[in-house]
């Protein structure tokens, strides 16, 4: 296995871990690892999309983790990088995975230039461990290391994030998932688990740092700090039961929609819900500060999986730019080009043409800025960005294999096709009015 930075960090554990346990999979690994714990736990490790799980060290029955709050360099997708803040070299930070009943000891070192804390979102723990700076604890000053220690009295999908200068530190990327598996395995058995955090960023075109002063008009919408086409697909074998754990630490609610299946909403940071509370949905709104678990039986095919706010599935686009729909610029385009040789009129018939112009090199953009619509599928442009990825289900994917299987080869006659409308007897369209 080729080691990347995360693997090295996992192995070294920021210098404090001697007996390192790597629970589950690091990025690109294709095997499961049975974790150790002080209680029975034979859980399906969660795969963090584009991310990783923090290793721990057992120390006299206590799982010890070490988080380092620091500035990180992060790529949102090919063409956009920024100086963000995160944990242990990444944003979001590594997923903490443990088992209900575990005692955890989490060291937090602050390598930022301002103070910080960590709040364990949704966890039931002593007041002094709750992580609200000034309320529950002194702030962790630059250079200091604090320790949090508590017993995990619950299971569910949780998150962690700062509670010191919270708005800035979250806006710049400081957050992570905290998954607590139940003490006893639940039924039905989960074959694959994924988790990701929803977030939003103001990376103004041409800049290299998130702007924490933006409250509403964001530029990038991410799953685990990645935008399409850089978000990994969710891969599964046909018939597997897949759980996706979603946390939302953005500033907006997100209707998360999956194509091809009806999933069940089965849990949250309140833990796995009783089955009588499960809801069948195809879209689930994950509110700000909420987590949701959805489960489905994988159906073969390539299925879009995305936030249903259409502008959240685009990369940066101008807010309130003049509406070009229906505007005929044919008489004036050349005059504009005489003073601006690179000018090309766009948008009269919609924005679909934009991706072609960008992909062909006609339209260069500002530095460090991805085009608003990107990605190519087997049948053409996907015209997506932001909070969009795919669920790829194949009959022949082996358990534990998370590699991208490529595009789905649909069976013959199961793909929408063009017809010769003059040759085929089709009913005339009915119009109102």
């Amino acid at each position, binding site marked *: 296995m080729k080691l990347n930075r995360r693997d090295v960090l996992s192995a070294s554990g920021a210098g404090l871990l001697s007996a390192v346990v790597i629970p589950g999979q690091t990025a690109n690994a294709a095997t499961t690892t049975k974790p150790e714990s002080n209680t029975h736990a034979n859980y399906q490790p969660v795969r963090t999309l*584009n991310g990783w799980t923090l290793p721990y060290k057992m120390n006299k029955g206590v799982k010890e983790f070490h988080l380092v709050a620091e500035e990180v360099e992060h790529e949102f997708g090919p063409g956009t990088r920024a100086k963000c803040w995160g944990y242990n070299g990444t944003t979001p930070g590594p997923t903490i995975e443990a088992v209900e009943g575990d005692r955890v000891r989490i060291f937090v070192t602050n390598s930022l230039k301002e103070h910080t804390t960590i709040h364990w979102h949704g966890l039931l723990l002593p007041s002094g461990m709750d992580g609200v700076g000034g309320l529950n604890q002194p702030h962790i000053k630059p250079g200091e290391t604090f320790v949090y220690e508590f017993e995990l009295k619950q299971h569910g999908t949780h998150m962690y994030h700062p509670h010191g200068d919270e708005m800035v530190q979250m806006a710049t990327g400081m957050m992570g998932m905290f998954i607590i598996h139940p003490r006893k395995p639940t039924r039905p058995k989960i074959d694959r688990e994924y988790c990701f955090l929803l977030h939003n960023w103001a990376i103004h075109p041409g800049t290299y740092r998130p702007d924490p002063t933006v409250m509403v008009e964001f530029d990038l919408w991410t799953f685990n700090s990645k935008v399409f086409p850089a978000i990994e697909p969710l891969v599964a074998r046909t018939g597997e039961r897949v759980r996706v754990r979603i946390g939302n630490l953005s500033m907006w609610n997100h209707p998360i929609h999956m194509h091809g299946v009806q999933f069940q909403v089965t849990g949250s940071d309140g833990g796995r819900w009783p089955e009588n509370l499960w809801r069948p949905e195809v879209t689930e709104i994950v509110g700000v500060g909420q987590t949701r678990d959805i489960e489905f039986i994988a159906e073969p095919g390539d299925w879009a999986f995305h936030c249903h706010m259409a502008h959240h599935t685009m990369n940066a686009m101008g807010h309130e730019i003049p509406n*070009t*729909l229906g*505007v005929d610029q044919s008489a004036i385009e050349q*005059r504009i080009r005489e003073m*601006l*040789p690179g000018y090309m009129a766009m948008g009269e018939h919609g924005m679909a043409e*934009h991706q072609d*112009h960008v992909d062909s090199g006609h339209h260069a953009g500002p530095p460090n800025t991805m085009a608003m619509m990107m990605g190519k599928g087997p049948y053409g442009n996907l015209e997506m960005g932001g909070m969009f990825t795919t669920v790829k289900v194949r009959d022949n994917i082996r358990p534990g294999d998370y590699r991208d299987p490529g595009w789905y080869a649909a069976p013959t006659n199961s793909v929408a096709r063009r017809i010769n409308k003059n040759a085929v007897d089709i009913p005339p369209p009915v119009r109102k009015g």
Partner: protein
Amino acid sequence: MTEPSRLGVACLVVLGSGCASIPSDWGQSNVNSMVVERRADIDFSNTEALDSLLSEPIDAEQAVRIALFNNPDIKAIYARLGYGAAAVYRASRISNPVFSFAALDPTNVSGVTRLSYGLIGSFTDLITLPQRKKLAGAGFAALKAEVGAEILTLAADVEQAFYQYQTAQQVKKLRKLTASAAAVSAQLAEQFFDAGNISPRQLAQAKSGASQAKLLALSSEADAFGARQSLADLLGLSVADDWSVSGRLSLPGSIDDKVSELLQYANANRLDFEAAKQRAQVIAERKKFVAWSRWVGAVNIGVEKERESDGEKLFGPQLEIEIPIFNQNLDGVMETDAEMQSAAATLRKLAITIDNEVRLADMAVTNAKYRIDEIRDVLIPARVAATRQAQLEQNFMLIGAFELIQSKQLEYDSYEAYINAIGDYWLARVQLTRAVGNSLPGAAESGRSYLDVQKLMVPKQSNHMHQHSHQFGHGESK
């Protein structure tokens, strides 16, 4: 030889020695030499015909050359030399002798008509001749300096008018371009409005913006025409004639003249200052002259011959002496005193004015140069970069076309500022040349390079194929 003959010869000698030489051109070539000593770039030759000079766009030097033979006032300026020449002529002459004759018939019939002949001339003129000649000569020299100063002023006026016209012409072109951009924006707004995508208010705002830009362009047309008229007047041409000025704007050189050096030049070379000094000197000499001549009075000498009525003939010298009892020409003394004081005050004022003019003009030149540097090295590149980046943002639909066009208009504004700054520089240099009264020490360095305004206005072709970001190229992909 009889006494009368000797006296007559003496008079002739004196008369002969009083003649002074006056140049046939009344000193014009003298004046021109003084001017060329100070402004070697000024060319008095008018060997090239006017039509030939005007067949191509003219530069500042050619404009001055044309003015020196075609300006309507030039002849009047040089004509003033005639007054000085006349004064020299007058001063180098003594008054004409006066011949008197009387024929008196006696009352008794036995006598013959008494005849009396007299010839008398001014002795005062004779003894004051050298001093008067000297004073007139000094006055003529001062006048030549004044005329020279007027020629230099004319040259400076022509240069000023030239640069004003040249700048106005280029600004006119730029404003037309800006107006065109605004018109394009308004036309685009109409398309948006027709599509139902902007409000009537937004359309009206776009149209008003275009109209205001057009008004500025029209105003610059009028300004350019006014500047053309000013130059035409100085060149003795009609605004309607077919002539033009070069569109190439000269750029400043790198040499900065030192103020101390410029002040020395001004003190040594300002012809109006030189003329004022000479005038003061003339007054000082005249004061000396008045000081002793006021006691002399009018003295006339001559001869008289009479034939008495009894036939006796008498002949002998004649002498008239004014006795300064009641009037010792104190008024003349007071007048020259007043003139002295006035001349001293004028000199002092001129010295202060020249000093201040040089310093102010030098500051204006330096300031204009700094503005040119700032606009060329900072403002224009920033505006060009802003437009380029705006184009990239518009490519990605991050901004709209209106904002892009606005960026281009701001770019045009920066070119206009550049042209105005260059114009201001040359106008300031003209003022400095005026103030110094001489070509500037660094003149040879300036004007060697040119700004081609036409090239400035032509947009560079875009090259979208090779846009790279090198600002954040490190780090690994995740």
